[in-house]
């Protein structure tokens, strides 16, 4: 297997399960629903940011339309669970809906990616932005299907499966974190595989891999599809959490959020974007509790990171730690 030939797979699985168990215990030590909500969101948005970092951190492509896939995952899941398929599938509805959300997002990423990867630098960024806004416009225009600017209204059922009832807060918490951790472990395998190192090589010097007989375009496209699929998964989890889907999730400012997280956490360490999501969410929670001017504070924090630290927090910590 191209993706699974790193011998520390078992170690990662072990660490992942350990983290999951710790967070489960955490749930009972701190029974505050506000804290549970933050942790869930950190994982959902962390997945979103980590998926974007495949392109930004490992491939050096500044994709500015990544929320398109987040939204496609959310809308696919929502529309499927609102449809009559739920009556027939009953308890399998949610796993099928999530698989479908990932599948649709990966197909969309393949279609958009195959066109975008032909361009470089700022032109790539602009084309991803244009596609995202095109999808946003389509969501707004198809009022009969998507509910237009109101979003997917009326909610949808969440039938229990395998004894998991996502209507219950604990089940949702454990399920979301479990799915996220599995995805992160798999992503780690991809990033540490020869394929992953191929991406870094393209980022650092695009001519060398081409001279070595590498297909740069194929690598870029596969990375784009993987990134889109994981963003779709994150979107489907967000839709399950909010029992709906909203057009703002496809607006360009939604694509800026994972960029902030990547900046805050660090783009050169694997878990950097996840840490960025943690900082982002804690900041969000803390600031909105104290002032209405969230943008002002977030803007100042970003300014400090851009001009002061010049790298994400985890990147900075790892560099400090390695120096000792």
């Amino acid at each position: 297997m191209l993706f699974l030939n790193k011998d520390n797979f078992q170690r990662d699985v072990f660490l992942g399960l350990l983290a999951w168990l710790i967070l489960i215990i955490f749930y009972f030590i701190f029974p505050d629903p506000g804290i549970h909500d933050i942790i869930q969101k950190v994982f959902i948005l962390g997945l979103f940011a980590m998926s974007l970092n495949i392109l930004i951190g490992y491939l050096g492509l500044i994709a500015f339309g990544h929320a398109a896939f987040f939204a496609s995952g959310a809308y696919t899941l929502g529309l499927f669970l609102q449809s009559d398929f739920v009556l027939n599938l009953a308890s399998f509805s949610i796993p099928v809906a999530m698989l479908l959300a990932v599948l649709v997002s990966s197909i969309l990423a393949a279609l958009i990616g195959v066109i975008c990867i032909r361009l470089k630098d700022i032109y790539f960024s602009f084309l991803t932005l244009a596609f995202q806004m095109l999808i946003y416009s389509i969501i707004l225009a198809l009022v009969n299907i998507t509910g237009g600017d109101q979003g997917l209204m009326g909610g949808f059922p969440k039938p229990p499966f395998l004894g998991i009832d996502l209507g219950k807060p604990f089940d949702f918490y454990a399920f979301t974190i479990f799915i996220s951790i599995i995805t992160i472990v798999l992503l780690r395998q991809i990033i540490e595989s020869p394929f992953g190192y191929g991406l870094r090589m393209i980022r650092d010097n695009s001519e060398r891999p081409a001279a070595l007989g590498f297909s740069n375009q194929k690598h870029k496209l596969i990375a784009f599809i993987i990134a889109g699929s994981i963003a779709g998964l994150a979107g489907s989890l967000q839709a399950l959490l909010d029992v709906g889907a909203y057009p703002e999730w496809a607006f360009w400012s939604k694509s800026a959020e994972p960029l902030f997280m990547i900046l805050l956490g660090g783009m050169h360490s694997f878990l950097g974007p996840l840490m960025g999501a943690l900082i982002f969410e804690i900041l969000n929670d803390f600031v909105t509790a104290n002032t209405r001017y969230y943008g002002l504070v977030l803007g100042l924090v970003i300014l400090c990171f851009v001009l002061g630290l010049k790298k994400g927090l985890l990147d900075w910590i790892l560099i400090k730690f390695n120096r000792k």
Partner: protein
Amino acid sequence: MEIFALFDCIMSPACLLSQAAGGLKIGMLLFLVASGLTLVFGVLGVINFAHGALYMLGAYFSWQIMSITGHFGLSVILGALGVGIFGLLFERILISRVYNAELLVQILLCYSVVLILDDLVMIIWGDEFLSSVGVPEVFQVPPLFIFDAIIPPFHLAIIAMSFIVGLILWFIMTKTRFGRLVRAAAVNPKMLEALGININLLRAGVFMLGSFLAGLGGALAASVGSVVSGMGNSIIIESFIVTVIGGMGSISGAFLASLIIGMARSFGAVAMPLFTDGLMFLIMVLVLVLRPQGLMGNKK
């Protein structure tokens, strides 16, 4: 899609003319803002994501000056100048630090300024919509009827003003020493520096000019629409579209692209009211796929 509505409109002189005039107004206002963005990109190589926030600032400044002095012309000119000075400080204090930084760093720096300014104007002017500055008294006359098309005279004035500003810009860029230096700086800044030109001053001047144009667009927009925090967030995306379609760094390209987008918006509103924005992005995608350097841009 109501393609027949579009057909009917094109066949009726009244509808055709009023839509064309509307499109021209949208396009020319957009050109004011987008020309500043493309100028800054062409010379400084920075995608100024905060350009829309400068536009918003122009609207607030002119609203404030209008409420103090009550003089329309003064409010527009001083509002735009104020944004120019703000832009100068912004370039010296922040932008000048990231000229050699990665694209992501530049985007995030500018975006953080957008977040800060959006909240600052709410702190200063409150988060309610401010009602528009209003049309000056000279133009408070019944609309013109040309072939039964209803055309407000003030819209014609906006079109004329934007056109004149475009001409002045063209004159500055092609006929003056400053313009020649600016164009030279876009091609080879190091050489210019070696020849003894103060490149920092030149960059600051260009950024100030770009900010002035954004402020001017905002000040004029304040006279026809309400003023609100975040009003720059849609104009910035439209300016990006214009910049990309016209060719990044090309002012004549921005002019052509602004006209295309203005018409697409105006006639798109007749043909497919729900998909007018989508139409713009479709054009942007097509241009990027078929001719990434833009209609008037140079192939690199």
